[in-house]
């Protein structure tokens, strides 16, 4: 690469600043949202559902609609979560995916 490692392009820097401002706004957005809603009744129930709802929404495309190794890894991790602590459960899921990716199952679907 012609540029030295410490070079910073102005357009790149401004793009990063725009990304940073927008991202920090989302991180503070929850505080703003709370000013407009009182945590009662259905609003409270909706907010209480946020943790599982977001986590499931993040993983669902990978867990359900990517391939057999990923779906199998998800099932193994979910079942392991019923009995095992965090790290062994993750290790089992990752191992399942890594092993199944070595098989023809990885290219099916």
């Amino acid at each position, binding site marked *: *690469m012609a540029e030295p*490692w*410490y*070079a*910073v392009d102005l357009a*790149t*820097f401004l*793009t*990063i600043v*725009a*990304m*940073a401002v*927008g*991202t920090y*706004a989302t*991180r*503070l*957005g*929850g*505080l703003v*949202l*709370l*000013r407009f*809603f*009182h*945590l*009662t*009744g259905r609003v409270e129930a*909706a*907010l209480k559902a*946020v*943790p*599982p*709802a*977001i*986590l*499931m*929404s*993040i993983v*669902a*495309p990978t*867990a*359900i*609609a990517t391939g057999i190794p*990923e779906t199998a*890894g*998800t099932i193994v*991790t*979910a079942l392991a*979560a*019923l009995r095992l602590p*965090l*790290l062994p459960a*993750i290790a089992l*899921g*990752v191992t*399942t*995916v*890594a092993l199944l*990716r070595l098989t023809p199952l990885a290219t099916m679907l």
Partner: protein
Amino acid sequence: MVHSAYAAPAQTVPSFGLGVATIFPLLFATAPIGLLFGALAAQKGLTPAEVFLMSSMVFAGGSQFVALDLWANPLPWFTIASSAFLVNLRHVLMGASLTPKIPLITGRKRMLGYFFLTDETWAFCEQKVLSQPVGFGYYMGISLPFFSNWVISSFIGAFIGPVMGDPATIGLDFAFTALFVFLVMSFWTGYRSGLVIAASGLTSVLVNILVEGAWYIIAGALAGMLVAAILAKPEASTNTAPLSDQENQNG
């Protein structure tokens, strides 16, 4: 109720050190992703200094990968910035959910702490408040190592990128899915939560297939929240008024 225990005064507040210990194992799964990000960024023409700036100022992996995907000459800065905003829109719901559960963190500490809000740190805090009140120490104990690890690994990745392999070959990319699946299971509280999770999962998958862009996370989250609101029993809300009062005073 799931979160009834978080404000109990007799409980000990978990320390900074416990936060570090909690996040520590996850650093081994994140470092290769950071290296990968740095390597891909270098391929797109970003210098290590630019990678360092993006990782430390934006600090949101998903949106950073999306930005690389959109990176071109001339820079479509508005598309990149608005995509980052969209990918990170879930933070709004995460903050709204977590804030009333961490009344120990307020004011400037909260403004600083929320700069470091990520899926992982947020999820650990949401899980922790089920049993213990979370203070600034534990929060930063989780956040600072995670932040440093991401910035440093992506910076290094920008130098050594071309010689590095793909983390997917040893399944490391799945570590995050596995972490979140585990945490989803820990939020299981009965059939209502099952319906919420099913609604979120189905909506997320459908929107991901049908709609261009990163709408699937926020669409899935809103679908789950809608189901929870519909299923809510009206009398289940009596104990929350003090929380919102407290929130207003602290804000």
